[in-house]
């Protein structure tokens, strides 16, 4: 579903990604882990068509980037640590707006389904700026799945969430993954990543330094694997 070969990203003289090789099979849930500054967000921004690769080949859902960016966007849902929602619109108006931008048919019914899924039906007519951070993040996931994407990218979705909100987000993420979507999530929360993902890739100093499946991890702890991968990458 996602194929990345020798991806390099430079900002001026600074090289952020130094030849990333990465592939994700359909239905896989990959946790992309790494220290701050490793290039996780830059990598997800390239996959989500918000940034162009400097060199290398990137294919998402069978479409090449940046050439087929619009086709990729149709198949992509993105959730970041920012909600990407308008505070002065209601939950329903936000979803209606994004639904129109995606040209969705039967939009009213789809909005009902999505609000039900993220547990915000009762708050559908409330302004988003009155929502808690957790509710905003749930609505952000609703926005991202509104057009029924095949691939979902989550960039630090737990940032700023309290315990209850994080647990609610866990449930929504499990539901998203259970529908067979391909998911790539960056996170610093190893415990959550270990619980949700089926594969763990470590991005360190601009390259994927290690990768292991849940089965491959066996009885080992993800934290130990992570520390080992970072130590090897030094």
């Amino acid at each position, binding site marked *: 579903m996602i194929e990345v070969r020798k991806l390099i990203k430079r900002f001026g003289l600074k090289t952020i990604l130094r030849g990333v090789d990465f592939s994700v099979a359909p239905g896989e849930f990959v946790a992309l882990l790494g220290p701050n500054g490793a290039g996780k967000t830059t990598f997800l*921004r390239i996959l*989500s*068509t*918000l*940034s*162009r690769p400097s060199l290398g080949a990137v294919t998402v859902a069978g*479409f090449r980037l940046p050439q*087929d960016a*619009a*086709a990729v*966007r*149709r*198949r*992509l849902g*993105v959730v*970041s640590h*920012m*909600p*990407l*929602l*308008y*505070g*002065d*619109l209601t939950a329903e*108006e936000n979803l209606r*707006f*994004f639904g*129109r*931008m*995606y*040209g*969705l*048919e039967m939009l009213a019914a789809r909005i009902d389904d999505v609000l039900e899924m993220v547990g915000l039906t009762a708050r559908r007519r409330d*302004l988003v700026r009155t929502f808690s951070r957790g509710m905003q993040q749930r609505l952000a996931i609703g*926005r991202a799945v509104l*057009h029924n994407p095949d691939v979902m990218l989550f960039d630090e979705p737990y940032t700023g969430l309290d315990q209850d909100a994080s647990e609610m987000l866990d449930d929504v993420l499990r539901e998203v993954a259970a529908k067979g979507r391909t998911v790539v999530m960056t996170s610093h929360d190893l415990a959550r990543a270990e619980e949700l993902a089926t594969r763990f890739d470590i991005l360190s100093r601009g390259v994927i330094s290690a990768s292991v499946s849940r089965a491959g991890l066996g009885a080992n702890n993800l934290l130990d694997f992570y520390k080992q991968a970072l130590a090897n990458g030094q």
Partner: protein
Amino acid sequence: MDNKRPSSSYFQAVLAVAWKDLAAELRSRELLSAMLVFALLVILIFNFSLELDKEARENVTAGVLWTTFAFAGTLGLNRSMAVEKDRGCLDGLLLAPVDRSAIYFGKAISNLAFMLLVEIIVLPVYSILYTSVSTMRLFTPAFLGVTLLGSIGYVAVGTLLASMAVQSRTRDVMLPILLFPVIVPVLVASVQASRAILQALEMSEVMAWVNLLIVYDVIFIALAFMVFDYVVEE
């Protein structure tokens, strides 16, 4: 071609962006109230500081009005793009599978609506404060037409440059620095055409400036259509 998934029509996306801005502003009234208060203050300050006699008032009307519109417009353009950037909403817009120039046109339409609304309120206030023979001509179709053309040119350039300036950390300062040198032809043509109408000069004198305004509007709308994608890309 990617026909398997629905995609928004170009005009549907333009209207969705404009609707979203107008609906959000109707709720918050942040942008309009700031523009309006600023515009009225500028007119009041000019009125008290210049202490003009009747003849001088006839001569400065066009200049004072367009200075007011330009300053108030800058405030609105800055705010309009800052709202998109601050909550990451610009990324949400850019993730939609539409030609990105549709986002530009949607934003330009809403910016134009805000600017025209401010002008509609400012003109009667100006005519009361600066009573003279020429102020009676502020409400003629010719003057209103020039105001519309000048505003279109201002917004066409302003929306594009505000999209650039918003990426910078010094965006509040950056926009006027970028905008005012580029907008000089629009301001000169608008002031000269307005002055000719207010002083009841020959139509041929008005039309020379009006033609310049039309050419400028067309050139900058076409330029924005071509370059907006590159301006907003990382």
